[in-house]
Structures are given as structure tokens and as C-alpha cells.
């Protein structure tokens, strides 16, 4: 199906987005398998997890001793926090894409070229 010819920055954004989400998704599956089969020990024993997930966030953090912020990075050796690395990666993908297109936009000039000649001003 023919469509609008995407701009250079749009194609660059799409390529990096595609690569990022594939890496993130595969990584999530691998780390989840590690967690599910307890190939690495978990911070919260899986059979106790449900009782913690019923708590509100405040009580959960208090009972588990987990701190907010980037504290979870220090727990990456536990299998239940390993997937956080990939979840964080997926959250960063769009930011990487913006940095990817910045040089293209700077090269073209930040002021966009309006490419719709039908409209007169």
C-alpha cells in the first residue's frame, strides 16, 4: 500500500525503535525464565510474593525493605529484579530514538520545513 513517503528522521526513529523493542522483549523473556525457574535466587520468595502484592505500595516497601529511586539497581543479582534492567531499557528506547534523530534535525535546521503546499498563508 502506497503511503506518505516518510522523512529521513522518521525512518531513522523507526529503525532504532524496532531494534530497541526487539532487544528489550527478548531480554524480558530470558530474564523472566531465569526468575520463573529460579536459576538465580529471588529477593522475595515466589511463594510469598502474592501476600506482598496484595499490600499497598507503602506497606510493600516497608515490609520488603526495598527503597524507592534507583535502589533496585543494587538488587540486580536477584532474579526478580533482573527484569527491571530490561524494563528500564524499554523505557529508555524512545529517548535513544530522540537522540538518534537530533543530528538529522539539526542538519535540516530545527525549524521544520512545512511540506504541504496546498495551504496558502
Amino acid at each position, binding site marked *: *500500500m502506497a*503511503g506518505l513517503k516518510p522523512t529521513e528522521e522518521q525512518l531513522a526513529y523507526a529503525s532504532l525503535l524496532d531494534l530497541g523493542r526487539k532487544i528489550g*522483549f527478548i531480554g524480558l523473556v530470558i*530474564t*523472566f525464565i531465569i526468575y520463573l525457574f529460579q536459576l538465580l535466587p529471588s529477593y522475595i520468595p515466589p511463594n510469598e510474593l502474592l501476600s506482598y502484592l496484595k499490600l499497598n505500595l507503602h506497606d510493600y516497601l516497608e515490609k520488603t525493605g526495598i527503597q*524507592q529511586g534507583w535502589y533496585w539497581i543494587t538488587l540486580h543479582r536477584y532474579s526478580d529484579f533482573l527484569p*527491571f534492567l530490561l524494563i528500564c531499557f524499554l523505557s529508555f528506547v*524512545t529517548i535513544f530514538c530522540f537522540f538518534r534523530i537530533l543530528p538529522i534535525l539539526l542538519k535540516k535546521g530545527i525549524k*521544520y520545513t512545512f511540506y504541504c503546499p496546498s495551504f*496558502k498563508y
Partner: protein
Amino acid sequence: MGRRQILAMFAVGLILCITSLAFGGEAQILTNSSLPWWAWPLILFVFTFVLGIVAVLGGVGSGVLYVPIVGGFFPFNLDFVRGAGLFTALTGALSAGPGLLRRGLADLRLAIPLSVVTSVGAIVGAMIGLALPKNLVNTLLGVTILGIMIIMLRAKKSEFPEVKGPDPIAKALGIGGIYVEPSLGKEIHWTVHRTPIALVLFAIIGIMAGMFGLGAGWANVPVLNLLMGVPLKVAVSTSVFLLSITDTSAAFIYLNSGAISPMIVIPSIIGIMLGAVVGVKILEVAKPKVIRIMVLGLLFLSGLRALLKGLGIWN
């Protein structure tokens, strides 16, 4: 949608409601603590797989269905369900985004300015949502879901809205484009108007998306299409792509607040993504109208559940 279909939708919702009440308000198996721990990710995977199919067939975002249903009928605290809902919406948008951008259906120049205000809104919404008492969040969630249902019922769509010319902001940002509509075999030149009002609305949409962990397609598309005058295909595609940016902002709030559990998030993400793939394949042979009625009934039930739960009437 005709009167019969609206009545059918409410009937489906009411039947499900009554059935739930008859079984004590919650499906027994879902609160059965004698289930082995691995049963939960499995149940969640199967449930979200079906949800992914239903969402595609019903033409609704899975995020809108995920949070109220999982929050209402699974034994997880809403704080964790919202975080998971946000990530399922994010991964769905990340999956669809590249294809839509490459085909030129999603427009980067339209999305970027809108995503700035929506992202700020999402961050604010996420912070507010995690600070509010749970019963208030449930009440607001219920009202929002019921409102979404009404919007979906009543919102009109315009395939090619008439826009006389871009407003000053749209002109300054160069928002506009051309795409070839295969059904007409001609080029469609489009631009947008009413951008200032749209920016305010997108900020509000962002707050709601961040607060409840919902996707925002139900609101993005009407604003893009009916208010700004974006052709429907571009509006839908750009909306999907926009979610990948909006939800990213709120995602960090939930991640660093601790409101993420891989046991909930990952099976949900995998289930919905696989379900969506199957849903697209079934779409050719399914009757979307029937599914849409069922989905709207489900929204009615889950919205009502969240509202009554928040008010302490149906716990």
C-alpha cells in the same frame, strides 16, 4: 450504533455483573490462596492473551481493559496493576510504532510537540496517582472507565476532516503532511487547527494516563481527528505511536517508586502481544461489531466494579 446494539451491550454487562455477584463478587479461583505461586503468572498470561485478542477485535486499547479488570478481579493491589497496565500499553505501542512510522501513517512531526505536553501530564498523573488513597483512585478510575465507554459509544469519526488552514502554532511547528489514500487513489493533504486547545487536552489526557496506567488511545484519537482535523488513519496511527512516548515518562515514575512486579508485568506483556497478533489474524473472519458490543459491556462492568469498590459498596 443503534438502540438494539446499545441495549445488547448493557445486557451483556449486566449479565456479567449479576453472575459475578452471584458468585460472591469475585471469581473464587482468583482469590484462592492455595494455588501454587506459578499459577498466577500463568493465569495472567492466559487472561491477557484473550484480552489481547478481544482488544484487537473490539477496536479498543488493551490498557483500557487491563487495569480495571485486573484491578477489580485479581488479588493484586491497584498500585502494581497500574504499573503493569502502563507497561503493557507501552510495549504495545513500541511494537506497533516502527511499522506505522515506516508506512508513513504515524507522523513524527505531529507526535513530538503533543508528546511533550502529554509526557509532562503523565509524570504529574503518575505521581498524583501513587499518592492518592486507593479508594479514591478506584472511584476516579471507575468514573473514567464509564466515561471512556460513553465516548466510545457516542464519538463520531471523520475520515477526512475539513481544515481550512493551519493555526499559527501548527504553522510554526510545520505540522502537516500528505498521504495517499488507497481507497480513493488520491493524495490527501492535511494540516491541523485548534492546536492550543489540543495541547491543553493532551496535558489532561497525559495526567489521566499516568494516574491510572491506562493507554490514551480512547482520548488521543477523538482529539486528533475531531478537534485538530487529522485524517482518521493518521490520527489512529499517530495515537498508537504517541503512547510509546507518553507512557515512557510515567513508566519511570512507577519503576522508581517500586510499583512494578515482574510477576505481573511480564506475563501480561507477553500475553497481550501474542493475543494481539492472533487477534489480527482472526479479525478477517470475526464479527467485529459483536465483539465490540461485548467489549463495551466488559468496560461497563469493570468501570462499575472499580467505582463501587472505591465507594466501598462492592468489595
